[in-house]
């Protein structure tokens, strides 16, 4: 795996400016996606994961203000001009959305949808684009691709349409793919298939991927490293396998413990309260109000993210809790 950083996010903060007082949605988020690396961005509602990705695509709503730095191959995304931005979006990165039906035009054929971007950006000729689109659909396991090209989105099932979306993301040969909850709307058996295709295609091409999901199990299964977010901040990041095997932040541990198992029955360890947004949490650790291990210090001082055994954790008590968290997560 190459060590070259594709996407480098440093101290990203996002605020909504159209409310009084201003609402913070994301606070000091930093992470890196390297070439050929899959990074999972995991969090519940209000964690700011979607906003972070929108910022990386420069797709934030007008009323949102992003500070900090987002660099793609060393170029600041937040400072890109109109032309650079268009080139960045059309050929450097691509996005796979949660709801493929909402991101296709019901009056446009699959073929037109697939080739529109690259042809209008002048990246490929129409004939070449059509050939490529058919080739990609074929690789996505879609049989009789030429016939599908002439069909409309409503003639395709959700799983099939999501495969078309993956093909569309790969059309421009991007270096980095953002996948925003790509299978949340799908049935489990379809999810497994779509994820398989997506991961296989992205790995084959050596692309970087930022995989956004609320499902820690899913993220751990398909990515190399994880960034766990809570209330707009990163609470833990590191190798997916390490985090899954032994979480070092109480929130990560609680997430793992509250997931109902299919193999045995147990009283679920529930975290009291509900997931909060960045602007709702008081000073101190963002998770303190719900954390069973919180102390006075946690409630008064916000822990700084720090290196610990090859990963980054934002918890005052990470060292002393190592054992407790491991037991809690696997209970």
């Amino acid at each position, binding site marked *: 795996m190459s060590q070259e950083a594709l996407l480098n996010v440093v101290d990203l903060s996002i605020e909504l400016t159209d409310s009084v007082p201003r609402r913070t949605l994301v606070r000091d988020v930093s992470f890196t996606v390297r070439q050929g690396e899959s990074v999972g961005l995991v969090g519940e509602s209000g964690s700011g994961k979607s906003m972070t990705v929108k910022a990386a695509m420069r797709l934030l709503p007008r009323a949102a203000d992003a500070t900090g730095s987002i660099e793609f191959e060393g170029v600041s995304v937040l400072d890109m001009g109109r032309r650079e931005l268009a080139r960045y979006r059309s050929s450097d990165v691509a996005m796979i959305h949660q709801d493929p039906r909402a991101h296709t035009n019901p009056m446009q054929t699959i073929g037109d949808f697939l080739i529109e971007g690259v042809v209008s950006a002048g990246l490929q000729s129409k004939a070449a684009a059509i050939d490529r689109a058919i080739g990609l659909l074929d690789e996505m396991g879609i049989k009789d691709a030429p016939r599908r090209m002439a069909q409309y989105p409503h003639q395709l099932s959700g799983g099939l349409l999501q495969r078309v979306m993956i093909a569309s993301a790969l059309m421009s040969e991007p270096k980095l793919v953002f996948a925003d909850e790509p299978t949340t709307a799908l049935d489990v058996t379809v999810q497994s298939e779509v994820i398989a295709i997506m991961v296989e295609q992205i790995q084959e091409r050596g692309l970087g991927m930022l995989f956004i999901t609320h499902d820690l199990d899913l993220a751990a299964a398909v990515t190399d490293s994880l960034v766990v977010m809570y209330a707009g901040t990163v609470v833990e990041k590191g190798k997916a396998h390490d985090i899954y095997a032994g979480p070092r932040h109480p929130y990560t541990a609680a997430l793992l413990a509250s997931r109902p198992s299919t193999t045995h029955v147990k009283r679920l360890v529930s975290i*009291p309260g509900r997931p909060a947004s960045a602007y709702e949490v008081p000073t101190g650790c963002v998770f303190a109000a719900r954390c069973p291990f919180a102390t006075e210090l946690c409630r008064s001082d916000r822990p700084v993210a720090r290196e610990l055994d090859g990963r980054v954790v934002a918890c005052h008590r990470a060292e002393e809790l190592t054992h407790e968290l491991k037991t809690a997560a696997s209970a």
Partner: protein
Amino acid sequence: MTSLTHDPAATETRRPKDKLLIIAGSLCGLLVFVALFGFLFAPYPPDQTDVLASGVGPSPDHLLGTDSLGRDILSRALAGARISFAGPGLIVLASAVCGTTLAIFAAWTGGWVDQTLNRLLNVVFAVPGILVAVLASAVFGAGFWAPVIALTVIYIPYYARVVRSAAVRERNMPYVEGLRLAGLSSWRICSRHILRNVVPIVLAQGTIAFGLALADFAAVSFLGLGVQTPTAEWGVMVADGRSELLNGDMQQSLVAGACIVITVVAFNIFGDRLGARYGADR
């Protein structure tokens, strides 16, 4: 389990103010106030003629001038607001009640009842209001009531169409199914729950309709089939002013016309913003 630490209500931030809503709303309020109490501020009785000062332009005595009979235009515009508002007010109220009732009934019953009502409303919607009002006046005699009743019927679809689709949306919400499962009667579900949830739409729609009905009602009076001269009413005033236009005196038509335009625009914008606010509320 009860330690629900984060309460969304506690951290609720206010929605940014809709300036247009406030401006249009204040203007509408002012206009309604004028309609109710404007005659109290009129410097002259609306029917008092002053032969010595007929057809004069704005002056300290007559701020907006007088008409050809020497009546004070400002006083007539202020006093005329009352009847100019009373007609559309009644129309909007009656058509809102009928339209909403019909709409909820149709949405709840569904099937052929809904379809038949829908077609019927579409037919009514296609008929120009003024035409029916003119016809009604021709049949029942000119005056206040004939156009009011005719326009009430014509304005029913204006509500019914919008409210029906809103009510269908509500009917399909899980909470309504929950109420049905709880054994509540259709009447109760419709009157206590669905109605309450479509009222904001009715209000928004009614505000816009008020402006339009005011213009229609004034138009019928202008044609001489509604409120009759010498009663002070904006439509009548525009009509009365026509003969003065030939002499180059345009104050009367202009003032009455401006009153109508301002009212229609103010209510239109107010209703539109109300509707948008309702949408944001959901």
